[in-house]
């Protein structure tokens, strides 16, 4: 898998799927349309500032709440290359893997990394590097089973390949 590198947007605990993509926009399932409202209720500036490759770093229970796959879809379509958090809510975790949005749990990195830092993530090793600070962190590598889904770029391809 390739690595991710970008500028960090930093958030706190319990970032829920309602602020990631408010339900008033769920009458659409078009990724570009969803991306245009990504993070709108927590950070109105996000969508104007985000560039392809940027990274979201948050604290505990990122993606809690609704099962809407629209949340990781919006984040991915906004150009975000990776989400790092102390912990993820479980449905968001599954959804991100299933649609091929790389996510990684690392409490130390989540605590230290600040907004605006440049961060690099190596998906093969799980190593997270804060280029701005010159620090490195060992993130939790995916179990083999999930690596296969990610390598297939999502659950749909994984199922197709197994046929």
């Amino acid at each position: 898998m390739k690595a991710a590198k970008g500028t960090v947007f930093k958030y706190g605990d319990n970032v829920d799927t309602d602020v990631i993509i408010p339900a008033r926009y769920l009458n659409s399932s078009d990724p570009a349309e969803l991306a245009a409202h990504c993070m709108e209720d927590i950070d109105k500036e996000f969508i104007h500032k985000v560039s392809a490759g940027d990274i979201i770093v948050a604290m505990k229970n990122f993606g809690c709440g609704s099962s809407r796959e629209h949340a990781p879809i919006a984040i991915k379509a906004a150009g975000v290359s990776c989400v790092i958090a102390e912990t993820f809510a479980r449905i968001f975790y599954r959804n991100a893997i299933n649609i091929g949005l790389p996510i990684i749990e690392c409490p130390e990195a989540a605590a230290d990394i600040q907004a605006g830092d440049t961060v690099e993530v190596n998906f093969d090793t799980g190593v997270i590097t804060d280029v701005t600070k010159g620090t490195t962190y060992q993130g939790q590598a995916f179990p083999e089973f999930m690596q296969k889904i990610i390598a297939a770029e999502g659950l749909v391809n994984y199922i197709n390949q197994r046929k």
Partner: protein
Amino acid sequence: MGMTMTQKILAAHAGLDKVEAGQLIEADLDLVLGNDITSPVAIKEMDKMNVDGVFDKDKIALVPDHFVPNKDIKSAEHCKCVREFAHRHEITNYFEVGEMGIEHALLPEKGLTVAGDVIIGADSHTCTYGALGAFSTGVGSTDMAAGMATGKAWFKVPSAIRFRLTGKPAEWVSGKDVILHIIGMIGVDGALYKSMEFTGDGVKNLSMDDRFTIANMAIEAGGKNGIFPVDELTVSYMKEHSDRPYTVYEADEDAVYDEEYTIDLSTLRPTVAFPHLPENTKTIDEITEDIPIDQVVIGSCTNGRIDDMRTAAKVLQGRHVAKGLRCIVIPATQAVYLQAMEEGLLKIFVEAGAVVSTPTCGPCLGGYMGILAQGERCVSTTNRNFVGRMGHVDSEIYLASPAVAAASAVAGRITCPCRLK
């Protein structure tokens, strides 16, 4: 080392004698559920798969309930997509407006969920069916697509927290107060990735509707599922609603739990979750400030069942909602609506100055039918009070039981029935 209730159900559906927490398994599914928000995305994903059709047209339930009757053109297109898919694949359990209800109230009522089942649904509150002794959990649209195509899903076997319930709840204390109390105690990620297993002799003092409410909000503590043991009440509910065979799984005596809590139901008080997290709970006695409100919503997959309607009506009978306050009552299914009509509850609501809506998830997620303006406050029997959940980012939601919601509608501020004149 023994297995929990959840682990036993998962082992049986994976064809294994034994599973352990952390193990990755592939389980056979008894039911795959989707709604009008999540199914269109799942249908799009399924179209990309090299499959001929669905794994079993009788084991898929499609329930347009979030934005129906269609709130706008885009919602109408989503519903049309689901309707056409259901028709194309001859899905037995597609529920059109007129026969639909809020999915998690509807499926048990239709007998589609029974003890021992493994159920996934592309809606986070799919955990509701744990009230019947099933393993059920929320997933996203891609998992739903894979489930519809293959009849299987992968799971990491969860560890569990045991909640031993004792005693009997006092008057005006319901399942909603029990689960809000628990979430307040362990936090919104207190059960992250875990099962919440409810046991103890206090269970018999909880109605089926109370149990549905409690299991429904397991996700609000981060739980993978919430599950109750099967007792006489469960069996009589299943016999009344379903002709499907059910299987009772009991936890082994030496099952291992990460944590155990004992909760004496008789000590619980009406409980309210303050903005903007379900864990920000206070008992009614701890609320010292005056909190004027603009709206009350009584309904949802959490509290739109007949018990909830009866409680709300008991409070509203002979009273009127406060001047200038909107009170929106939403029976969760057509059957609940009809029952409430036959029992005269709808008349009580209308005479009290409340409006009664057709079943919809609408206001709970800020879709329609009760959106809040800037600065407005709502007491709601729904399940989430996140920032902007019901409308403007500067609005506020207070989660409570139907009893507290109805009393607050009358008073125009947060209160409980025992304090009404």
